[in-house]
């Protein structure tokens, strides 16, 4: 079937098999390697993308559901101020840019800050709970989000 959608700001039109997941379309057909498949059951969060601004597990979303939607992966966040601020925090604090958890963490935080300009610690914890991270530590990332939201909306 023909899938038409906007991916990272570019309008795309591509032929996809009806039962293919959005994850496989993004990785195999579009070469967006930041989206990874690990658990394939919506638990690990390495396949997280934004669908019309909401975080979803792309391994669970059939590709045809992306018709007429806006899909954002971490590649599409490059010009976002939130992304820039969080990347700076990671490098200043010498935190690893892990290819499994960091893209998902950046996406959920961007989605959170777009909806809630002033998130509290509980909001941030809930958003970060999407992703299984064993490299950075959730509290460090929580501090990064709080600092970013304060700096951005001061």
């Amino acid at each position, binding site marked *: *079937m023909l899938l038409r959608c906007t991916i990272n700001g570019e309008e795309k039109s591509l032929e996809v*098999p*009806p*039962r*293919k*997941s959005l*994850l*496989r379309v993004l*990785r*195999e057909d579009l070469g967006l*390697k930041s989206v*990874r*498949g*690990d658990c*394939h*059951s*919506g*638990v690990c*969060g*390495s396949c*997280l993308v934004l*669908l019309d601004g*909401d*975080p*979803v*597990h792309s*391994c*669970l*979303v*059939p590709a*045809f*559901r992306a*018709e007429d939607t806006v899909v954002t992966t971490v590649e599409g966040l490059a010009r976002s101020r939130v992304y820039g601020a969080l990347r700076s925090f990671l490098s200043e604090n010498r935190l690893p840019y892990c*290819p*499994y958890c960091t893209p998902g963490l950046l996406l*959920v935080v961007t989605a959170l800050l777009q909806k809630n300009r002033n998130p509290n610690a509980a909001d941030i914890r*809930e*958003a970060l*709970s*999407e992703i299984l991270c064993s490299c950075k530590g959730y509290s460090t990332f929580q501090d990064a989000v709080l600092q970013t939201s304060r700096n951005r909306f001061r």
Partner: protein
Amino acid sequence: MGDARRQTPVQSGRPGKIHRPQHLNELLALYSRFPDALLLAGATGATPAGEALQGAERIIDLTTVQELKRIRRTDRFMDIGPALTISRILSTGRHVIPRVLYDALRSVGSPSLRNCATLGGNLALASPYSCPMTALLALESRLELRTTSGSRWLPVSRFAAGHGKTSLRRGEVLTSIRVPLAEWNLGVFKRVCTRGELAAPAVIFCGIGRLAKQEIQDLRFAIGAVNPTGIRDRRIETPLVGQKLPLSGREIDGVCAQLGELIEPVSDPFSTPEYRRITAVRVLRWFIEELNRYPVYSF
């Protein structure tokens, strides 16, 4: 590890056909023509990597049907479209939907899973571990089921016919979930897990009641994840209605013993049948003992 091609099972069989009806009449006509088609709501229970989607020759997508994505509220009830995502229902607000249902919906998966999962899909899976199903049982909700030839209303208690089995007839589609809006001044929703929040629960408890002037005016409770279908029995609740608080130890023991007789626990890797039996009775005992502290204890 990172390559989806190596992780995802290879698609087999014919390529399959997707139908995306826009309106209810279109959906019902399609489903009566292809009653073996897979009705797909949030797709979180039938992942693209899962067998259900791979095996289906024909898939009908419910999320494009406008009539299934509406919420309507009157003074007496709330009609929830089964194809609405759980996040969308939650976004109507804690004070709009009954509190126990709100808490039950919040306990479904993670926030991003709730962005896809639908309430109708959750019910149609007929899982004993469904939190919303337990809350809807206690709230005495009803479901509208439609075919091209007519419709019928079914209490939630008669919808699940076993683990993974529903009372849906051939060609029938769940089109509305009606939740009565009564005045409850207490509501408790609890989910007991043995292996953390991500695991299937061992016991789900939902209790609601109306207490006034140290008297139980109405009381309902439902228990999920214990039997293959949710437990709700008016015969246990009725003797408590009209009783003055505090309840005696003998009355509490009687209610717990009655519940114990109804339990035929499922066995799975998450918990043993004996643990389920003991915990279900303990949670009920805790709930009733807390009633005795009314109004000191606030739910």
